[in-house]
């Protein structure tokens, strides 16, 4: 039992390292990903920022915390692509015929993506600070806020893993990711306060985990009361992880 557990840990470590090497070998992917996020941040802030009323605070103060959450939402679509790519290239047959721990392949992917999110978050926080964003809370709260975003990213990455493993081809994985990601991102409190939306959409936006994530991040970075949104987002995180992790493993084990 002990050896199989230590094998699990070492197998996950080997595969996480493999994926990270791949990211750094193909820096274009990471660089374009980072650039796209920076461009979006600039565009939204300077194009829409003036037109959106955010109740007294400057738009960058309102927008950046949610934008940080959005990075991991879009980031998780790339997971689907990566998984689909590995599936099409015969790696899965190779890996499944090895005496390695079964969960390691998918878990290694999720962990390496978490590292990618940390990199992007740090970068975008720096850009935000240059654009005039100011933290307005204690250091620990800020760290907790960023950590919660990464956890949210991990939860969505398991959704991405399941999609990648289900569609099995790279192009479909790309499109499939955006289908669920766009409504989540825009029908939320991320870009605009939800009070301006029609009633039915408000109902959706209120249960949307991206809303909770954006609200929690805003509070943890800028101060205020966090409790109700915090529980909501934690419930979402662990619910998504439990559901999609088990679905993904099931599919991986039964893959023919």
């Amino acid at each position: 039992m002990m050896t199989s557990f230590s094998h699990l840990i070492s197998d996950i470590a080997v595969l996480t390292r493999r994926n990270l090497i791949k990211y750094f070998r193909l820096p274009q992917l990471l660089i374009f990903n980072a650039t796209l996020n920076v461009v979006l941040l600039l565009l939204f802030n300077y194009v829409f920022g003036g037109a959106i009323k955010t109740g007294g605070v400057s738009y960058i103060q309102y927008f950046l915390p949610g934008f940080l959450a959005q990075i991991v939402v879009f980031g998780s679509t790339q997971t689907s692509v990566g998984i689909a790519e590995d599936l099409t290239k015969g790696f899965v047959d190779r890996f499944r015929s090895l005496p390695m721990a079964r969960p390691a392949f998918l878990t290694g992917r999720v962990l390496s993506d978490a590292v990618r999110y940390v990199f992007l978050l740090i970068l975008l926080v720096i850009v935000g600070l240059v654009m005039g964003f100011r933290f307005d809370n204690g250091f620990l709260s800020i760290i907790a806020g960023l950590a919660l975003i990464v956890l949210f990213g991990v939860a969505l990455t398991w959704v991405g893993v399941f999609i990648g493993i289900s569609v099995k081809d790279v192009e479909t994985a790309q499109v499939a990711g955006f289908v669920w990601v766009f409504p989540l991102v825009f029908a939320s409190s991320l870009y605009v306060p939800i009070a301006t939306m029609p009633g039915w959409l408000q109902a959706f936006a209120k249960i949307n985990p991206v809303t909770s994530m954006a609200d929690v991040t805003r509070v943890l970075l800028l101060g205020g009361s966090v409790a109700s949104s915090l529980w909501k987002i934690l419930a979402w995180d662990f619910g998504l992880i439990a559901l999609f992790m088990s679905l993904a493993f099931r599919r991986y084990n039964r893959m023919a």
Partner: protein
Amino acid sequence: MNPEDIREKCKEDSVRIEGISKRFGKVQALDGINLVVEPNSVFALLGPNGSGKTTLVRILTTLLKADSGTAQVGGFDVVGMAQKVRSVIGLAGQYPAVDDTLTGRENLEIIGQLYHLGGKKSRARASELLEQFDLVDAASTRAKFYSGGMRRRLDLAATLIAKPLILFLDEPTTGLDPRSRLALWEVIASQAKDCNTVFLTTQYLEEADRLAHKIAIIDEGKIIREGTPGELKKCCGGESRISLTLYDRVNTQAAADALNSLAPGKILSSSETGTVSLPADGGSGLLSEVVRRMDSAGIVLADLSLKQPTLDDVFLAITGHTAEVSPAAGSKIAGEVR
């Protein structure tokens, strides 16, 4: 592995398959397969595309569960003791599982670590294999820049990193140029020693003939013939033939008559196409004798060739129908390597 263990392993069959069947929807991919593969040998499963070769390999390598029947690999049940099976096998699938963004060495080391060899031993084995597979110069190059032959070699090296007892190779040389194919054949042949076994699938009779100690021919999910290469050649049209194409097909019967005493009863002729053929077991002396007889009979030849048997010929002899494999591809490869 020490000599004691090896002798112990040699007592067991490497692969034992009893009544394995598998159905995908309406297609019966495997239909009651029984096979035994002895240790210390190369075994070839020969059959056309879609005959069930890959499905059987996937079942034996724990990737797929059979609907019925049992199989043991290295003495372990492929379902009940799958993880044990995985620790004694190496699998090279139809498409090389080579990571383009990683170097040759990294590709090998990662597989070594996933076999739980540990970092140090993985590095040592990677170096050995890079040497053995003539990839030392390319060790630090990303696999993206490898040729098709190099990728196959790297893929095969990866499957050997933990010194597997039983090596599964699913169509190992499909799509390779003749030179790379020859190089790979040498490596495969050298693996069957110290009680190690190679289980390979192929659609080329040539390849099975060259490498295997024993061949099983599979068609539509059933083993239709089993034997040594020699036995299959004798029984089932697996011999090479001298083939003549006449300039004027009116002479077909005359040509067949003139050659009859060289291989009584074994001359095949078709006056529709103007072709005559006979077994080529007499060597090059026979070829010159054929030419001499045609000359003295005054029959002009449009073409004279030594034709290697293909999977098609064997299938025709056993089943009466040809294999569903492109005949052009089969004969081209057979022609190129000899």
